[in-house]
């Protein structure tokens, strides 16, 4: 038999009240109550009276009566709004007939119903009416218009691209080196300025055509004296100052004909090659030259792209449609694509 404690006494109390405890358990419970007199009161409170049918006397008549007096306003409004059931409506009307004061008050509620003044009319109805579906036609035509605009923009873009493509893709090394030198000058003013322009431009005087330097070897292949050696050091300094990040990000080094590796095929027209070799004499003598992979037209293309995107966005806004023009770079194919998407129309173009 389980011991009765202060933690489980409730279930014993309930069993005791229902008369399901055994005689031994009753003795144990009485003993527990003697030891815990404060719980005796709780047991007494748990003793619920048992109702018998005779005890309950309900006034059925009063239950049937609807509390019209107590909730008169609610019933008046509900009657007015048609929220009462048919039975309740009849009962409420009967109640009103019997009680004159309530009837008068209900009359006031009846007066709160608002009636529209039909003399008030909107006089400019004809102005509101439409004779044709301009909006709809415009919407259809706008889609075609958007598509046509995009095609035009692409055409313009391509023409400009080709036009610019005829010009040299290669930037003069002088410009790049000049920039780098200027930057290096700015960063370190104490450092002695180097006449890079003289080195890089064809009109250079310090580096003579017959003198060849090998940067890779790090040695000056010259027969001249210490002055020439100093020049080699200066050139090396210049290359050190030209940040590799800038070169790798913005430029692509291409070996020229006078480079160490003759197998490298140059994708440069001969005329241009000549021009570079003459203009980039300094680097050419070092056996190097470079062709910009970020020609000036790229910046112009960005401007064109921005204009095109703006135009497309505006057209989409006017048409009330989602029109997208996106430039995406695909690392797998190493190609940049322009995507145009709108409802029903979508095409893509690869950019060189």
């Amino acid at each position, binding site marked *: 038999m389980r011991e009765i404690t202060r933690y489980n006494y409730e279930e014993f109390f309930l069993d005791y009240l229902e008369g399901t405890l055994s005689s031994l358990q009753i003795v144990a419970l009485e003993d527990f109550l003697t030891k815990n007199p404060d719980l005796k009161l709780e047991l007494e409170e748990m003793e619920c009276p048992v109702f018998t049918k005779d005890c309950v006397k309900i006034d059925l008549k009063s239950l049937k009566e609807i509390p019209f007096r107590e909730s008169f*306003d*609610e019933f*008046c*409004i509900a009657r*007015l*709004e048609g929220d009462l059931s048919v039975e309740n409506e009849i009962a409420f009307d009967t109640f009103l007939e019997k009680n004159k004061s309530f009837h008068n*008050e209900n009359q*006031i*509620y009846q*007066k*709160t*119903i*608002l*009636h*529209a*003044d*039909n003399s*008030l*009319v*909107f006089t*400019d*109805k004809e*102005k*509101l*009416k*439409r004779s*044709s*579906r301009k*909006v*709809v036609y415009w919407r259809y035509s706008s889609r075609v218009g958007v598509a046509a605009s995009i095609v035009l923009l692409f055409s313009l873009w391509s023409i400009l691209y080709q036009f610019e493509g005829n010009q040299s893709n290669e930037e003069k090394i002088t410009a790049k080196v000049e920039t780098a030198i200027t930057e290096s000058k700015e960063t370190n003013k104490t450092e002695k300025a180097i006449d890079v322009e003289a080195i890089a431009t064809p009109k250079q005087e310090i580096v003579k055509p017959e003198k060849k330097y090998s940067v890779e070897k790090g040695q000056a292949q010259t027969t001249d004296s210490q002055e020439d050696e100093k020049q080699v050091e200066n050139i090396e300094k210049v290359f050190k100052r030209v940040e590799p990040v800038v070169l790798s990000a913005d430029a692509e080094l291409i070996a020229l004909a006078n480079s160490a590796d003759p197998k490298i095929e140059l994708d440069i027209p001969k005329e241009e090659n000549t021009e570079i070799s003459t203009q980039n004499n300094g680097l050419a003598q070092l056996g190097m030259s470079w062709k910009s992979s970020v020609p000036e037209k790229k910046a112009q293309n960005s401007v064109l792209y921005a204009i095109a995107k703006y135009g497309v966005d505006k057209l989409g806004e006017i048409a009330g449609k989602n029109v997208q023009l996106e430039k995406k770079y695909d690392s797998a194919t190493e190609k940049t694509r322009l995507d145009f998407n709108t409802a029903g129309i979508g095409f893509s173009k690869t950019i060189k």
Partner: protein
Amino acid sequence: MNLDEYNISVDQHADGMFRFILKNIRDEDKARDIVQDSFEKLWRNVENVNSLKVKSYLYTTAYHTMIDLIRREKRKEDFENVDVRDYSHSEHYSDLSEILDDALKRLSEVQRSVILLRDYEGYSYTEIAKITDLTESQVKVYIYRARMHLKNYIGSIESIV
């Protein structure tokens, strides 16, 4: 919804909308503008609006435009803050409609809108709830309060007269 249905909706609902807005804001020009705006919006969305629901669309648009206008002008006046005894009775009412018109002015904008939609247009609680962005229970409560205020106002005027 097609062009003909649109033009029919102008004939059917322009007057009612105008009355509804005019009773709310009591400014004929602005009421006219709101009605025009609502039909303009309907025309812009004419392809997407079901002709069976055009009335609800128009009233919803007009109601929200009106509420925006009221809020902009801060012409909010809550009836609950007005003491019935302070009403000016110097006016001589010729009939009940004038008393009601005056009482209507003193309702809050929401109470006024819901009771006008209920009485003028015969909208159900559910439809009013949709138009006014309220719950059905809120609509019931607003209508109940509006009726109480109108009844009290009419009662107080009648007792004085």
